[in-house]
């Protein structure tokens, strides 16, 4: 975890309000434990549509080995996955399927948009009729990695970035505020 902090952190999330702890130390501690568990156990869905999927496989491979972070439990069924790495172009015909997969995942769920095609359509932004111009038109995206395809290290970087984001979540505090 120290390493994560020592990483040159990504730009702060716009709109994220960093509140002071008014929910009590216990709640904050509980949140810390939950966020620790969630951020260190991101099981990705086996989901790849094109080139980026190969780099995703490389990240799972021996050289880059995302199992060091505990990400290697790639689940084939969305019910057991926490993270959907959208690796590859999403076309109009695939978009409802992706939406359905996302809906089938239980909360909390996270999305990484990997590669130019998923961020904005990438090489298929102009001149094509069939590509969804950015997967965030279909499902909400947490982290974007540009690149075509991004290196496996870049994917690892994005997952660390996502871990950082999860560590700032406030699960219990939000619950308490909802009750209030």
């Amino acid at each position: 975890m120290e390493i994560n902090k020592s990483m040159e952190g990504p730009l702060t999330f716009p709109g994220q309000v960093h509140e002071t702890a008014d929910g009590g130390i216990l709640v904050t501690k509980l949140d810390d434990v939950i966020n620790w568990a969630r951020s260190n156990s991101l099981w990705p869905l086996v989901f790849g549509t094109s080139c980026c999927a190969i780099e995703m496989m490389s990240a799972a491979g021996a050289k880059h080995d995302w199992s060091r972070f505990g990400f290697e439990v790639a689940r084939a069924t969305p019910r057991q996955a926490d993270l959907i790495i959208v690796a590859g172009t999403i076309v109009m015909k695939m978009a409802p399927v992706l939406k359905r997969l996302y809906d089938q995942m239980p909360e909390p769920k996270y999305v990484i948009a990997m590669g130019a095609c998923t961020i904005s359509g990438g090489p298929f932004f102009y001149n094509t009729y069939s590509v969804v111009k950015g997967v965030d038109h279909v499902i909400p995206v947490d982290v974007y990695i540009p690149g075509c395809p991004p290196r496996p290290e870049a994917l690892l970087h994005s997952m660390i970035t996502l871990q950082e984001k999860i560590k700032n979540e406030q699960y219990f505090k939000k619950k308490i505020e909802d009750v209030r």
Partner: protein
Amino acid sequence: MRGLIEDDYVTDEGEFVINIGPQHPSTHGVLHLKVWLDGETVKKVQPHLGFIHRSIEKMSESLSYRNFIFATSRMDYLAAHINNEACALTVEKGLQLEVPDRAKYIRTILAELTRLQSHLLWWGCTGLDLGAVTPFFYAFREREYIMEIMEETCGARLTQNFMVPGGVMYDIHPNFQKRTKEVLIQIKSKFQEYDNIMTGNVIFENRTKGVGFLSKEDAISYGVTGPTARASGVSCDIRKLIPYSAYDQVQFDEILGTGGDCYARYMIRMHEMKQSVSIIEQLIDNIPEGEFQAKTKNVIKLPKGEFYQRVETPRGELGVFIVSDGAASPYRIKYRSPGFSNLSALPLMAKGGKIGDLVAIMSTIDLVIPDIDR
């Protein structure tokens, strides 16, 4: 999705309908297979395409001849280099441009490296499909070495875009030859290990032998090419039949099988890896000096006419057909992709097998879905 994805559990004939894909670990992407089952036995398979149709052909019509090459890397991303080469060769054919020998040699070496890494990935994924996880990691270890070569010389790991009409984008990196020779020694020493863990394994043999038979006649009539067809005894290696680049300079065998089953397809690819190694070994020390790129005009305009070039990708025959009306961008482009024709033979091969066989057949055809949908 109504109508496309079958909601009925059982058909009138008592067949159980399942939808494999679009998201499924064994479809290698977003292929949707509608499978009619009788118990475990596959009665009928119907592939549905279009889940990754990115209209690369249509898009290329609005790009210049220099620019449209990059998009083909995304078609068959495991053979991005060979796709790019096919496009460059077609444009050169139209321009009647003589490519320098050095560029030809570099292209051939890189193409064979591409073939090697593609087959390595296929080998790992076949293991994965059949339930053996470990081969995947062994294959990726060797594949990473090749990726390093690609990165050092081309600048990217997967979608290199190293081809330009008239040659290659840069000269090879000074380390290229040394590194390639080292990697070849590494890879050659691992072939025995691959055989130990997969080829000789009794479970693997049982899973593939006699599974997914494709006869020679069927292979020809379905237009199947590449290792899939050669496993059925069809001689179709473009590198041998119509040599392009530097393939007329090298000695290699076209591997022909007779079995026509999954095991034959598997063995063809295993032997092809060894052939690729031998091709690279023949070329690597003999790269001629000289220019790496022929002089071309800044704006390339092909003369009016139709141009067709075929190359051999790891999956089969890729044809690039360009219709030019004399403008700076093609009038029409058509890719004859190997995956599409190979997939069309899947229902034939899978019929009568089990679900496990369907997975084995899909992995030995070595489908790359964006290559099918384009």
